[in-house]
Structure formats: C-alpha cells, structure tokens
C-alpha cells in the first residue's frame, strides 16, 4: 500500500509471520487525510482480527468525518475512544469475542512539518533523524508502567512474568486513556509505525540501519518485514514507513559515496596484500581454508561489504558481515582471541589503504579514514551483539544450574527453623479465630459413604491420601490451624518448583471431584447431599489456601536474602562511583601534562603492529602503554 504527497513518501506493509495462522494486525495508510496507523489485535479464536479491523474502520471513519472540524488532538483522542467503545461493544454481544482488544499507534499529519502521534498498547512509533532512532511511544504494559514508576528495576522487568500483559488497550473498557504527542518533522526524517511483530523479532540497530538506508520507503518496509521473518517471524508484523522528503545529503557524504567508494574499491588489492602479510590465512578461523580462500572469503567479503556501505552511505553490509563471521566462529565454541585478531587485521589493512590514499589526496584520506573507522566500529558492535547473545545463553545455563543447587538446598518442611508456622500464622486466611461451621448429624454418613465409594474406584496413593484428609477435614469441620497441619503434612519436604507443587493441587481437585461425584450418585436426601458438598467445598478451599500460604512462606527466605545481596551491591556501586570520580579528577590533571604524540598512540600502534607473530591472547592491547619517556 503506497501513497505519495509532494514532500512525503509513505509505504505500509503487513505479513502474517511464520508461526501464526491468521493476521490480526490491521493498518491505515490514508494519504488524502494524512492518517496512518497500525493496530495489533488480540483475543484469540479469530477475535483479534475482528478487534483490529473494527478499530481501524472506526478510527478511519471518525477522522475522515471530522477532520478540520475539531481540534486534531481532541479528535484523535475521541476517535480512539470511539474505537475502544466499538470493540468493547462487539465483545459484549458475542461470548466468543469476550476479552478481545487491540493496540493502536496512529500518526495524523497536521501539515508537512508537524504530526500527532497517538497510541494505546505496545505498538510503537519510531523517528529516525540524523541516523539516530528515537522511540516516540512508551509501551502500555504493566511492566513498562511499573518501570516508569521505579516500582521495579529494568533487570526485574526483563524477566517479569507479566512483561507482555498490556495495561491499556482498545476494547478492554468502553473508554481508554490515549497518549498523544506532537512532533516536528524535518527534511530527511523517517517515521516508523509498527506492531510488536517487528521489534519483538528484530534488533533495534538492525531496524535503525534499514530505516536509515537510502532506499525508498517501499523497499525499507519490505526489508523490515523480511528482517522480522528472519528473526523468527513469531507474530504478525505490520510496518508503516513515512519519509518527510529526501534528506539533504552533506557534501562530504556525497564525496564518500562517489570518489570515496571508488577509491576504496580501486585499492582492494592493497587491502588483500596487507591482510595477507598480517597473517589472515594463518588465523585458526581460516584453518580449513586455503590461503587464497582465506583472502577471498574473509578479506574479499569485507572489502565488498564496505564498498557497498560507502556507496549507499549505510553500515548494514559490514554489520551483516561481522555478525556472520562472529556467529560462524563463536557458535562452534571458538575462542575469542582469533576473532579479535581477525578484526584487528581488518582494521590494520584498512589503515594501509587509508595511508595509500593519503599519498594521493590527504583530504579524501581524512574522509575515508573517518568513514572506515565508523564501519569498523559497527563491525565491533555487531560482534559485541553476538558476544552479548552468548553471554545471555551462558547466563541462562548458569542460572539454571545455580537454581537447581539452590532448590535442592532450600527444600525443607515448612515450619522448620526458628518460627513455628502454625502457631504464628501470618496470613489472614489462616487466622485461627474463624470458627468453622459445624456440620449437621446427617452429613457424616454421606461423607463416609462417599469416601468408601471414591477409594473403591482406585487411584494412586497421593489421591487416596487426599481423599482421606479431605474427608477428615470435612467431617470434623476443622479449624484453620488443623487445616494448616494437614497442609503441612501434605507439603512435606518439597522443592519450590512448579513440577513439585502443581501435582498437589491437581490431586486435591481430583479428590474433591471424586467425593462430590460419589455424593451426587448416592441415595442420601438432597439436603444432606448439599450440606456434605458444602463441608467438602469448605475443607477443599481451606486446604488449597493453606497449601498456597505454605508455598508463599517457603519462598520468603529467598526474598529476604535477595534484599540483603541487593543492599551489598548498592554499597559496592556507591564505592565504585566515588572512586571513579576521584580517578576522573586526576585524569583531567594528567591530560594537561601528557603528550601522546611524543610517543605513539597506543591503540593505533598496536593495530599497526598486528601480524601473524602476535600472540593470540585477548587484551594484548591492554598491556601496551606509553612509557614514561613519552612525557614532557
């Protein structure tokens, strides 16, 4: 779907993704009205697409009918509220659509230089200006709002169980709170509206690079969809890309895209020669390649990627090159040192090319040096991303192993330790002062008969144990303390893990249902049956709540310990912060008396010295330092 305005180019695209069967996203690209939007429906069972399409239609119609007659901000607010009411209304009418809703992110152009962005939910708007991507919207998720209130830390947010729970959407209620901001558009800006199917499956930097390329919005939208699909495409993905006129390209950039890239390409042999001399073919990463293949694959592909980047004023090719190189090596369990060495060889060979250019044209060499250094930084960033992924994977394994240890050491009977749990219950539902309602004399025989029938139907030991406990609690109309004792016995020495806890609740449900079935099938008078079921319900509820209470209690020491550790970290951080301030103060004084040109710039020299003889150890550069003789 493409539209055009004199100063704007716009394109929207949507894709069902690789996993979902239906596309629950919807969008608006209405160039005539200047209205663009993305909706991401939810609610399952085909209700999500109903919600998003309904909201789309309402917003579109509302804005079309009232544009020019209302204050634009009030109009957008009202349009989204009308959409929420319509979706909510639809959900009330049909049971299979109950709970459906949709997110919305809407852009309304006020003129060619101003726009309003309205949103509800976690669909986002981004603005790319000067190569930098800014997120214009803040997700309306429970976690994002807790984060904004500083109620949780970013670290807690990352692993929060409810990080995907929306705090606002269109349809949950007839009205909703809409966030609206006004933005100024300048020439060259690119605005992106998208559903979480994009940012959930593509990195921000990849989005930034594609959005920042010189391609037309149509191609960018296609590439963004492709990016999300390559990232797994686990959700529907929808993007709308708006470009506020092509950016004025700086003279230096124009020069790089023409003379710079040509000059780089013309010196590729110089690059290969430098890479060869620095020992690229001897690097363990190239162990299975012949020397010629090593040059072709490692150096050749880099030279080509960099050439295309210089030509298009982007960094996406070099990024992809470095990411592939790092994945290819590190995913096989390769060590860091050879990869570091390869990166330094590339850096070194770039330096040789720049030195070559400098002999012919010093000004162009400066431009190329800045551009190539930027590309090398991007290379390092891409590798850093892969390292970050590896770190997260190792962390996950580490956490799992550590947790298994902790779980094993935490397993104990509740009530062990200093504080007797039953005598001092801390939870309101376990209070001892609530007198149980006694059962009438007609109930006991009904419950006894039900137990006999239920036990006679077979089942495992856990079920029989629960049948007996439930029966006893129902017959005795036991006070909460007695229920807690039963729960504690049931809990036993149990690990605080879902697989250890969940089966007890399952067994409790099974036992209660077996007894109720037996009561219902029995021949007792109806009033006695009802009374027996009431006693049973009360006993079952007491046991379930007590069990939950014990689990909560058992989890508490871990929480206390965590608070202690967090306090220690905070103290340590404060100390590091304070020492850093002292270092910074001395560093500033040091900078006034130190002249690095008297010697060599440490890092540059290290890269110039790169070669096959360099020991393959990380941090080698860290050991290089200017000697005292370099001081004035």
């Amino acid at each position, binding site marked *: 779907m493409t539209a055009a305005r004199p100063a704007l180019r716009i394109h929207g695209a949507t894709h069902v993704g690789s996993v979902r069967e239906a596309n629950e996203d919807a969008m608006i690209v209405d160039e005539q009205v200047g209205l663009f939007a993305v909706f991401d429906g939810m609610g399952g069972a085909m209700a999500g697409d109903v919600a998003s399409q309904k909201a789309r239609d309402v917003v579109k119609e509302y804005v079309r009918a009232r544009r020019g007659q209302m204050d634009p901000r009030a109009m957008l607010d009202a349009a989204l509220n009308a959409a929420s009411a319509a979706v909510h209304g639809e959900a009330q009418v049909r*049971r299979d659509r109950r709970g459906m809703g949709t997110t919305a992110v809407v852009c309304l152009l006020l003129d060619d230089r101003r726009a309003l962005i309205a949103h509800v939910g976690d669909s986002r708007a981004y603005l790319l200006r000067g190569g930098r991507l800014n997120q214009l919207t803040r997700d309306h998720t429970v976690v994002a709002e807790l984060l904004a209130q500083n109620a949780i830390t970013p670290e807690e947010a990352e692993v*929060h169980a409810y990080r995907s729970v929306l705090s606002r959407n269109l349809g949950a209620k007839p009205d909703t709170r809409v966030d609206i901001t006004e933005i100024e558009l300048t020439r060259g800006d690119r605005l992106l509206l998208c559903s979480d199917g994009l940012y959930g499956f593509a990195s921000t930097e990849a989005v930034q690079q594609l959005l920042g390329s010189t391609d037309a919005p149509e191609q960018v939208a296609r590439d963004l969809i492709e990016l999300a699909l390559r990232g797994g495409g686990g959700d529907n993905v929808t993007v709308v890309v708006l470009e506020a006129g092509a950016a004025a390209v700086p003279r230096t950039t124009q020069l790089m895209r023409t003379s710079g890239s040509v000059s780089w390409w013309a010196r590729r042999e110089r690059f290969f020669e430098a890479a060869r001399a620095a020992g690229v073919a001897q690097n363990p990463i190239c162990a299975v390649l012949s020397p010629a293949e090593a040059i072709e694959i490692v150096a050749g592909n880099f030279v080509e990627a960099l050439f295309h980047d210089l030509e298009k004023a982007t960094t996406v090719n070099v990024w992809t090159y470095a990411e592939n190189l790092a994945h290819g090596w590190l995913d096989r369990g390769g060590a860091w040192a050879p990869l570091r060495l390869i990166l330094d060889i590339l850096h070194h060979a770039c330096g040789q090319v720049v030195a070559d250019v400098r002999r012919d044209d010093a000004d162009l060499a400066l431009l190329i040096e800045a551009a190539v250094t930027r590309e090398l930084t991007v290379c390092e960033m891409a590798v850093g991303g892969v390292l970050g992924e590896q770190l997260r994977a190792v962390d996950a394994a580490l*956490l799992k192993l*550590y947790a298994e240890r902790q779980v094993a050491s935490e397993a104990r009977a509740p009530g062990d330790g200093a504080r007797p749990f039953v005598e001092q219950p801390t*939870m309101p539902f376990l209070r001892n002062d609530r007198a149980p309602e006694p059962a009438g004399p007609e109930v006991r025989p009904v419950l006894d008969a039900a137990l006999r029938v239920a036990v006679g139907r077979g089942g495992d030991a856990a079920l029989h144990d629960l049948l007996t406990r439930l029966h006893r609690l129902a017959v005795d109309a036991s006070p909460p303390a007695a229920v807690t004792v039963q729960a504690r016995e049931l809990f036993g020495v149990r690990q605080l893990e879902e697989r250890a806890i*969940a089966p007890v609740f399952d067994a409790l449900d099974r036992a209660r249902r077996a007894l109720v079935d037996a009561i219902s099938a029995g021949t007792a008078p109806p009033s006695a049956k009802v009374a027996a079921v009431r006693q049973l319900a*009360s006993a079952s509820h007491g046991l379930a709540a007590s069990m939950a209470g014990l689990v909560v209690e058992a989890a508490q020491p871990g929480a206390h*310990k965590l608070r202690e550790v967090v306090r220690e970290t905070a103290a340590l951080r404060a100390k590091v912060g304070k020492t850093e301030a002292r*270092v910074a103060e001395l560093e500033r004084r040091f900078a006034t008396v*130190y002249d690095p040109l008297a010697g060599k710039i440490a890092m540059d020299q290290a890269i110039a010295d790169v070669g096959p003889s360099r020991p393959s150890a990380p941090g080698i550069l860290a050991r290089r330092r200017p000697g005292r003789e370099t001081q004035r």
Partner: protein
Amino acid sequence: MTELADRINVLRDEVLDTVEQGDRDLPGAEVFEAVVRQLAALGDSSGHAGIDLTLHDAIARRLAWGDTEEAVLGDADRVFERLVKAVQRALRDPDDQIAVLETASDVLTAAARIVALSAVGRAGRDRSARLREELAQRRLREALTEQQTTLARLEQELKDSGL
C-alpha cells in the same frame, strides 16, 4: 449465559459487598467473575471450561501491581464465605446448589494454585536475581581493584611531573 450463571450474577452486590466496598476494583471480584464464567461455560455445549486464563491474568495483574498473595487469598476466602451463604439462601434446587459449590471450589483451588505458582515463579526469579547480583558484585570488585591501580599510577605520574 446459562440461567444459573445469571442467577449467581444477580448475587454480585451481595457477595462482593458493593455497599461497603464501592463499585470499582472490588476485592475478590476476579474470583466471583470466574465462578460466573465457569457456570456459563457449563451450559455451553460448544465450549468447555478448561484453564481460565482470565482468572490467571486478573490475579497476575493484582500481584504485578503490588497486591500481596495474602491479600489475594484473603479476598478469595471472603468471597467464598459470602457466596456459600448467598447460595444457601437464594437457590432452592439442591442440584443447583451443588453445581455452584463445586464450581466455586474449582475456582478457589485454581486461584490458590495460581498464587502458589506465582510464588514459585517469584522464588525462581529471586534466585536468578541473586546470582545476577553476585555476578555484578564480582565485576564491581574487579573494577574497584583496577581503579585502585589507576589511582596509584595517576598519583605517581602527577607527582613525578611536579604537579
């Protein structure tokens, strides 16, 4: 919605004590609504009750917004007590009474299970957070050692340069 679900829904004000608690954010409303939903599903031949994700989300939301597990279970307990009394008074048919009591028991066990598993989840997150903190502490200690070395070096360099 089945007739029975409708008749229980009518008891909402009584069970949730709206006179005392007001009409918004009623404590334990998620449990009452789950009972009504489950009763409605009982009479719906096209569907089955299954896991009540709405109840899960409602409790999850309460916990996420800072309500304690104690509060959630305490509210559920109060709703259960009031529901049992209201049903005893309002429903004549023993089968209806049994159906509601059984449904309420299902929902209450589900609620207790959600709370328990949420505590289990939190315990797991606490363990992870503790390890992360310990790893962060190790990095901070290393940084501190490096800072001490840097400080000593800078002080020496500045002293040597006469500043």
